[in-house]
């Protein structure tokens, strides 16, 4: 077990207090994480780009602001890593695609503006599956990210870089995005915490679009309170996002503190009958770790109620029609004209031919598969049977959630059916890869929040427990997750094997 004497072992909340109260400076903290990146990222490969100079400049500004007694955010001076699907002014942003290699965005995403306003230094941009399409980060066009728990295994996806960076203590906090599970599933398989907020409560402005009716940015951390603090920094109404909800941010930090007291008396937790019936998809070790977690929640006073959500059985095919359809439209913008790659512009090829050659050269296999699938689902003669049908089933999935939340406060399940798999195990069979998101997809289709909290180990690899809440009920999910953490002597994230440093 690591001694909590090192800066990198402290939680974000502890670091923020140390900086605020003068025990540490942001420059010291930021330097410690940059040095950790230098020491272990050659092994983990979580970062596509590290911005040492920019991070240290922001840290110096944070220190000056704190010294001048400026009103500081609760995370002032604490550094953060940002998934490469979020645009950052002046910092390379590729969404891990060759089609955007070398692109420097001319503006910041709203959530990045808020991170900067909170005086949080940005350490760099993290690796991911290309355009956030995948569950293993193996579809990054640049390189694979390794799971710090076992470097022969995947770190989950699409946000494998953010999760691995936090798991390997190269960053205390990170930003992810979740379209079908891309924050929660990497959290589960790396022993870290990840939250998908309510859709519309966190701005999509400046997220490179994958599936606009599902994409949601959120926090990645080692525990519920740290995530909640970052959640409150980035959350809230944004007039530049037409689907942004104009309502107060749920009090997630307060809920995490309440949960940490370890009392869930009177809280009703739903377990989905149809998930239990589909348990053959989940590994026995995952089920065992999850069930041990449920027992702990019961000991804290929670009541377990079985709920029926029959339409969840259809969530996977519904998602794999809606998400690729929206993606095929969103990715039409990569035409080799306004940004990124252009291939075949030799004076002989027409604009259309240059577009086709550019997209062939710039997109990887999973992106092409989904563009073709989406084009199929939206094409004349199929649109009603596929895309239209999926939108109707989406309504039924929403209704299942709404009916369940009349009976329970939150719904719990394993986060993902299997622990981190070995590289290459599922790339040959896309459908096997898609199963990773079996339990996370329903809440994306519904729009409600979901968090993944480390619950235990199966064969030495981390397992996550998912807590889903009602729309704008993010606080209950944080409360239950923090309560589960209170039953663990040592946070699971702190029990990862030490990495060999340089």
């Amino acid at each position, binding site marked *: 077990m690591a001694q909590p004497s090192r800066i990198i072992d402290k939680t974000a909340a502890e670091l923020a207090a140390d900086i605020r109260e003068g025990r540490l400076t942001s420059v010291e903290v930021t330097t410690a994480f940059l040095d950790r990146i230098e020491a272990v990222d050659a092994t983990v490969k979580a970062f596509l780009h590290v911005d040492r100079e920019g991070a240290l400049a922001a840290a110096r500004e944070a220190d000056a602001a704190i010294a001048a007694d400026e009103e500081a955010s609760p995370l002032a001076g604490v550094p953060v890593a940002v998934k490469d699907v979020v645009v950052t002014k002046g910092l390379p942003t590729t969404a891990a695609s060759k089609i955007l290699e070398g*692109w*420097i*965005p*001319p*503006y910041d995403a709203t959530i990045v503006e808020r991170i900067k306003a909170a005086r949080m230094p940005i350490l760099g941009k993290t690796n991911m599956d290309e355009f956030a399409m995948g569950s293993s980060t193996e579809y990054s066009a640049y390189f694979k990210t390794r799971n710090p728990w076992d470097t022969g295994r995947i770190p989950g996806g699409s946000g494998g870089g953010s999760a691995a960076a936090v798991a390997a203590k190269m960053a205390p906090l990170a930003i992810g995005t979740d379209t079908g599970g891309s924050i929660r599933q990497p959290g589960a398989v790396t022993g870290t915490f990840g939250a998908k907020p309510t*859709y*519309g409560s966190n701005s999509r402005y400046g997220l490179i679009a994958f599936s606009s*009716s599902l994409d949601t940015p959120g926090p990645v951390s080692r525990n519920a309170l740290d995530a909640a603090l970052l959640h409150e920094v980035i959350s809230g109404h944004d*007039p530049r996002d*037409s689907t942004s*909800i104009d309502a107060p941010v749920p009090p997630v930090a307060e809920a995490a503190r309440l949960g940490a007291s370890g009392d869930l008396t009177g809280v009703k937790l739903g377990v989905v009958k149809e998930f239990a019936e589909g348990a053959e998809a989940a590994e026995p070790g995952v089920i065992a770790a999850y069930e041990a977690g449920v027992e702990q929640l019961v000991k804290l006073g929670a009541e377990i109620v079985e709920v029926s959500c029959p*339409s969840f*059985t*259809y969530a*996977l*095919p519904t998602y*794999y*029609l809606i998400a690729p359809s929206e993606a095929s439209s969103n990715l*039409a913008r990569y*035409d*080799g*004209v*306004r*940004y*990124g790659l252009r291939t075949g*512009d030799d004076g002989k090829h*027409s*604009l259309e*031919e*240059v*577009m*086709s*050659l550019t*997209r*062939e050269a710039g997109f990887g*296999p999973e992106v*092409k*598969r989904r*563009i*073709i*699938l989406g*084009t*199929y689902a939206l*094409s004349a003669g199929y649109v009603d049977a*596929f895309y*239209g049908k999926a*939108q*109707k*089933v*989406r*309504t*039924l999935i*929403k209704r299942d959630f709404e009916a369940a939340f009349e009976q329970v406060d939150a719904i719990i399940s394993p986060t993902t059916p299997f622990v981190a798999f070995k590289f290459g195990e599922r790339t040959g069979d*896309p*459908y096997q890869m*898609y199963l990773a998101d079996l339990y996370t997809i329903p809440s994306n*289709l*519904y*729009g409600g929040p979901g968090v993944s909290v480390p619950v235990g180990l199966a064969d030495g690899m981390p397992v996550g427990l998912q807590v889903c809440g009602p*729309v704008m009920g993010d606080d209950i999910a944080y409360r239950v997750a923090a309560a589960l953490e209170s039953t663990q002597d040592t946070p699971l994230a702190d029990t990862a094997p030490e990495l060999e440093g340089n």
Partner: protein
Amino acid sequence: MSTISREEVAHLARLARLEVTDDELDAFAGQLDVILESMKALAEVDTDDVQPTSHAVPLVNVFREDLPQPSLSREAALAGGPDTAEDRFRVPRILDEEA
């Protein structure tokens, strides 16, 4: 009986402006067939009288005042383009030579 043929995949790729290779066509046809096969399950769901959901949280008519807002400078907007000329994005020829 497969759901999607190699020829259909080639047609869809053309519609999506993807110049796919023969090897990709072979791989994608088989993989898309498996995926589409799994989606046939949706046909068994009764969705008569069910309204489609296009967005997770329904919001309608989000307006703002029709006032000029700050925007990117021309230089910043053009900076990411692979080829620019005379303050514009330069594009390859749009019409075929025989046109």
